[in-house]
């Protein structure tokens, strides 16, 4: 498998002198649902500068997974500078006061450490997987780039070419990326989710250091970050290290963030893009809900019934019985702000979309008029349980699962509690949310088709 290097960024910050540790009780994350028992130690506390720290001890291998996530993503950008959060993530690898750009990669490798980062609509995350003995080194390096990022114009000049190539790779030369961009840009007209996280090419080519620095100063703060350390460490000495390195970082008030509320579509919209492709693809999308919304659990299960795996309703109809589609999927994309419920399919080469669209509409209607059987409901609940377990295989996956719950909900424990919510969803709930959200009159259809 090819290794794709996704350079991304990170940071951390803030502080007041000797920070006090606001200790919360030691928690044991645990799930005990429908025969499923998962139990591992998690401890969360906050430094006085607002940095949230989550520790999860696990000595199965002599390694540590070190995650630093910030509550900043592409939704925090202005429409005139899309992709800034992602660009800044790249620049986090270009050096800071103590560790220069070239030093960064070199030192990590010399110490047996791998690393990467990612940016989403709502957050930016950086992580390293390191031998246990390298914990202090990583803290020093992370604090350095959190507090005093270099952001040199000459580095930006070459890195914006790199990001330009990344955009071509993800979007401009990638039919799936193009279709997604078309769909999101049509479904969202006001909210920043309307532009892609990687940004538009015209903005990528025009980033300036001063604007990126403003962004950095505004959001890369300890009171806007979550630090997760999972793996083979000693909690007591680790807490001392965290305090030693991070408490020196000053906190600052975060900007007030008012994200516009996306109004409902007044009518359905259909957009088509002709491209050099072999097959037609279509996304049918509806405005959805935010992560943690009471209806999000039922909507996830609706998506699973419709399009998760070969036993889903749409896969059986379109791929197996009718043999017209190459693949079909459904997904409930929840973000910090309301996201989208989507059904996507790609036809076999040469076939039109009409029959697949008709069948999909009819299956969606069925979700609104007929109760799902208890057996089918249990099936999709089991799939959710399995996904949760699969998300905890490695220390890195554990750290990610804890970080995303803490970032989105301010509470990592959602990782464990959400299964109860899935388990209490009823067939009636699936019917109700299908009626409420999957409204054909407010649907966006985005199509990619071969050029004539």
């Amino acid at each position, binding site marked *: 498998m090819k290794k794709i290097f996704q350079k991304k960024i990170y940071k951390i910050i803030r502080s007041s002198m000797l920070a006090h540790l606001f200790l919360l009780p030691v928690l044991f994350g645990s799930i005990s649902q429908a025969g499923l028992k998962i139990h591992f130690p998690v401890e969360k506390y906050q430094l006085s500068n607002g940095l949230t720290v989550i520790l999860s001890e696990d000595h*199965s291998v002599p390694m540590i997974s070190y995650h630093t996530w910030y509550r900043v993503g592409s939704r925090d950008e202005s429409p005139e500078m899309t992709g800034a959060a992602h660009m800044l993530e790249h620049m986090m690898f270009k050096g800071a006061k103590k560790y220069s750009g070239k030093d960064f*990669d070199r030192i990590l490798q010399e110490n047996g450490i791998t690393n990467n980062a990612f940016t989403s609509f709502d957050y930016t995350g950086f992580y390293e*997987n390191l031998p246990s003995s390298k914990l202090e080194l990583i803290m020093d390096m992370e604090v350095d780039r959190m507090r005093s990022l270099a952001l040199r114009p000459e580095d930006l000049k070459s890195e914006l070419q790199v990001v330009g190539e990344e955009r071509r790779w993800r979007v401009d030369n990638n039919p799936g990326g193009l279709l997604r961009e078309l769909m999101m840009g049509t479904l969202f007209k006001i909210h920043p989710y309307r532009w892609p996280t990687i940004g538009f090419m015209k903005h990528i080519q025009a980033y300036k250091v001063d604007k990126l620095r403003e962004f950095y100063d505004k959001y890369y703060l300890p009171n806007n970050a979550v630090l997760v350390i999972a793996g083979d460490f*000693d909690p007591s000495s680790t807490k001392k290290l965290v305090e030693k390195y991070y408490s020196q970082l000053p906190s600052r008030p975060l900007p007030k963030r008012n994200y516009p509320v996306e109004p409902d579509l007044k009518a359905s919209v259909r957009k088509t893009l002709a491209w050099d492709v*072999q*097959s037609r693809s279509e996304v049918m999308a509806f405005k959805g809900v935010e992560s943690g919304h009471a209806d999000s659990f039922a909507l996830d299960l609706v998506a699973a019934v419709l399009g998760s795996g070969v036993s889903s309703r749409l896969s059986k109809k379109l*791929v197996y019985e009718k043999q017209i589609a190459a693949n079909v999927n459904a997904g409930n994309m929840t973000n910090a702000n309301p996201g989208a419920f989507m059904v996507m399919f790609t036809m076999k080469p040469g076939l039109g979309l009409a029959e697949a669209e008709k069948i999909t509409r009819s299956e969606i209607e069925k979700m609104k008029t007929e109760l799902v059987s208890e057996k089918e409901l249990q099936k999709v609940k*089991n799939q959710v*349980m399995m996904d949760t377990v699969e998300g905890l295989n490695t220390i890195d996956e554990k750290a990610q699962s804890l970080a995303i719950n803490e970032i989105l909900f301010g509470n990592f424990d959602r990782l464990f509690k959400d299964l109860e919510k899935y388990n209490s969803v009823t067939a009636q709930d699936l019917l109700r949310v299908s009626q409420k959200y999957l409204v054909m009159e407010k649907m966006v259809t985005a199509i990619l088709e071969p050029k004539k």
Partner: protein
Amino acid sequence: MKWNSLIGILLMIGLSSCATSSPRSPQAFRLRPVEQRTYRNGLKVLFIPDHTLPKISFAMVLPSGASADPKGEEGLMSLMVALLDQGAAAKSAMQVADDFAQLGSSFHASVAQDYTVLSTSGLSQYHSELLDLFAEIVTKPAFQNEEVERKKSQFLSKIQQLQDQPGPYADLKFSQELYQGSVYGRPILGTEATLGPLSRTQVIKQYFEYFRPNNAILAVMGDFDDNMRADIGKAFGGWVKADVTPPPKSFVQASSGNQYKIISKPGLKQAQIHIGQLGIPRNHPDFLKLRLANVILGGDFASRLNQKVRDDLGLTYSISSQLETYRDIGGVDVSTFTRQDKVAETILNSIKVIRDFQEKGVTEEELASAKALMIGQFPAAIETVDRLALNMMLLRVYGVSDSYLRDYIKNVNAITLKDLNETIARYIKPDQLKVLVYANEKELGSQLKSVGKFQSQAL
């Protein structure tokens, strides 16, 4: 379980596991205990318990892959393997799909050139249902005629649609170029011409030829108890052994001089580039040294290729070199992508890095750094029972002893600068490269002339 992605994880192994309460060094950790037993019908089974999650996995590796396809029947192994879960015992394809899904699980199968991996994982409360289903699929596939035709049609679509995915399409075309003339130069999925005539009879013949218990290794991983040994005997006991013919050896002649080819497709907005050469097979004694060399050439962010082509020149978002090793042959594949006006510059700079690497070798500092990375990340390669099992099974495919894992750290540490530079000088061949570009040729202008004489092919 993400077996497909696991295959990408370095074939390392090693150590570890007994829980202690304080941080340890990689050197201090030991291989997790694995019990191996062979059943009466020749089926080898690895039992690797782990009760930290309520999860159980079954995985089977057979040392037979696409390279075993008869000439002219390319795609047969992939087709047969894709049909395993399309009906088994008395169940239809959709019943099998429903049965897996009801347990929150699914079945995965993938065919590589030298081996096939089948796997499933699920909540351990359903271990016995999952085992029965897995065994049914593996030992009693139905291969109904209509399923054969349905799957063939899906394969044909997939082959045609691949050209819309520039990265995977270029990967496939480059393998064909690099290993041309050997079984490794054939597409794993086959072609329109070879798939079309394949029949149910050929599928069944291929199954009985290779899917035998004495040609398989099964791993049971996760949260199971002592009864599992008997359960495995029951589930697979009826599977009948038979002699399996090992595939014939397959080699490739190295090219003389560099060879250049461009495949052109209108509408492409970016160029995919591969630069590669022949290398060594997996069981070669210099494998570990060449792996170490590859880390320095293009294995990580700090590698020479990444530092030069991405970080200094901003020509790409990703460049890496990959050591490919098969049963009989192998290669080194440098892959990247760039904007279409920078293709020549990217190729020339990459070849320059390769040439310097071969001519001047590496420094003591680079050696120490690459060793640190390989050793530091080694525990991650065997962190989970799934990863450990896959590593152990693939070592068996290639006839490499488990000591590869046990002694991995010691052996990496023992490589000297002299060893490494001799290895690089011997195996890296900057004058026997094959270069492939997948781009919209019209957008390239005359820049390729500065690289060499390109053979041009339209899609």
